[in-house]
């Protein structure tokens, strides 16, 4: 039994992968709590796809250094989230349509840019589905720093974000800076996506953001507890997923997401069996 647990850990890349998976899982789950409660899942999915052209430019210009990829992705994510906001505010187009337009357009641009390189399909697969086992030590430091920044922001503005998400009109009558806080939350989501990019990639990102938070939502009636539970469930999914990936030889990103989905299914099924109602 101990062997089963310890065997994968003799590889440094597995240990780094575990650390990355837990770190990313926690950050995504905490931020994901607001995404679930505010109904922003489609926005999160779109934002993850919309950063592809940024990654592509960083990839084409930089000589493969991850640091530059990170900054390109960050700038693109923030610009895309602002673009979506601007379109839906200033035209009669509804927000989900605006998201669809930006999302598909930028994603296509990213694929087009990457397709100019010969080894296109391998590299594209890494961006789309992540490569958590390829995480290096300096990647971990960067993830830790920006992930920590995200958690610190959520903690610092906890009561403001709660009021804004539950009752925007109350936030306005308490004269909170509503626009600024909305903008801050978008930036926080953008940074979270970039931090998580290497773990699950663009295509599966939305699962990291919503699945653990949704599972926690089924289990508690308190916001802070929901965040803590989501973080714990996401960490569990990260670790179990990587073991599954090691022993079953399946792609690491999808193993993590599938584990997370299975946990959601278990909780949901157990609740249905026990006739729990809200």
């Amino acid at each position, binding site marked *: 039994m101990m062997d089963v647990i310890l065997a994968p850990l003799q590889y440094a890349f597995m240990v780094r992968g575990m650390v990355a998976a837990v770190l990313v899982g926690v950050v995504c789950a905490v931020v994901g709590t607001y995404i679930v*409660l505010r109904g922003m899942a489609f926005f999160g999915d779109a934002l993850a796809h919309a950063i592809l052209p940024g990654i592509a430019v960083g990839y084409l210009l930089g000589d493969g250094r991850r640091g530059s990829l990170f900054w390109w992705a960050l700038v693109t994510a923030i610009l895309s989230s602002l673009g979506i906001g601007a379109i839906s505010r200033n035209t009669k187009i509804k927000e989900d349509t605006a998201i669809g337009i930006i999302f598909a357009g930028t994603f296509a641009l990213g694929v087009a840019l990457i397709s100019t390189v010969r080894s296109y399909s391998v590299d594209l697969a890494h961006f789309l589905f992540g490569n958590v086992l390829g995480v290096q030590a300096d990647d971990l430091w960067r993830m830790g720093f920006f992930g920590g920044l995200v958690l610190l922001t959520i903690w*610092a*503005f906890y*009561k*403001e974000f*709660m*009021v804004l*998400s*539950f*009752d925007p*009109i*109350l936030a*306005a*009558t*308490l*004269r*909170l*800076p509503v*626009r*600024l806080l909305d903008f801050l939350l978008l930036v926080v989501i953008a940074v979270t996506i970039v931090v998580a990019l290497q773990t699950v990639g663009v295509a599966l990102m939305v699962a990291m953001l919503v699945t653990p938070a949704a599972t926690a*939502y089924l289990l*508690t*009636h*308190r*916001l802070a*507890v*929901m965040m803590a539970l989501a973080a714990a469930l996401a960490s569990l999914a990260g670790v179990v997923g990587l073991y599954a990936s090691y022993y079953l030889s399946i792609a690491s990103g999808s193993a993590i997401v599938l584990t997370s989905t299975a946990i959601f299914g278990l909780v949901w099924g157990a609740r249905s069996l026990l006739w729990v109602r*809200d």
Partner: protein
Amino acid sequence: MTILSELQRTSRHWSKQRAPHPSDIPVLRVQDLRVAYDGRVALEGISFSLHRGDRLAVVGPNGAGKSTLLKVIAGVLSPDDGKVDVFGHEPGGHICIAYLPQRNQVDWRFPVRVADVVMMGRVGRMGLFRNPRREDHQRVHQALETVNLTDLADRQISQLSGGQQQRMFIARALAQEAELVLMDEPLSGLDVQSQEDVFVILDALRQQEVTVLVSLHDLEIAARHFDPVLLLNRQLVGFGPAVQVLTPENLLHAYSGHLRLVETGEGTLALGDTCCDEGRHAGEPR
């Protein structure tokens, strides 16, 4: 421009700069108010004022602009023309204005407990990076006691009845130390007992000289429990004591085709037709 005003608001919020409350002027003064959405006029030529402890009912058919009026007074919506003064200043400078949402516009599955929601009323006074202090907890406790919800403080909000939900929002306004309370359709969907409970609390608010402004469907409740009454149909049809405002002529004018007046032996019976959302009726084109 918007960035500048947002920054002003931010600095005002975190420096806790608030408009003063002189006692010799009206709590609320609305002058020649005009609001339009996408070129369609929602409110026009509205003028009235309220004094400390007044309890105003805003009545009128669906689509008359009742919610819009409340939101402009709350300082959440900007008027296109005219002026709203609360204690002589624009509403945006005050945190003493409470807006209680219609219950069907609230996400009742949001993971918060009753006490959490009431504590939200304190957030405007706590300041950034601050946790609730002793005074905040005391205010929440008092507010819950006033509305008789102390026993349910730890319940998730979806487990409350309609009347309890309404009382929770009143408690939030109390915790906010609101001096002007705006309530959007607080009585719709409540049984008679729950409505009576709400009026007991509103009587207590009047004693504390809190000014209350309520939008309503029910003309009879407006006439019985409120003074003054404001009859609205995009324009101000009447403002004053119920007997002077809710006259057959005014009602016919405000409700036009959706009201029938029936003469009975004891007086005039008004049959209102205010069934549907957004002033649209079954079979009417959108």
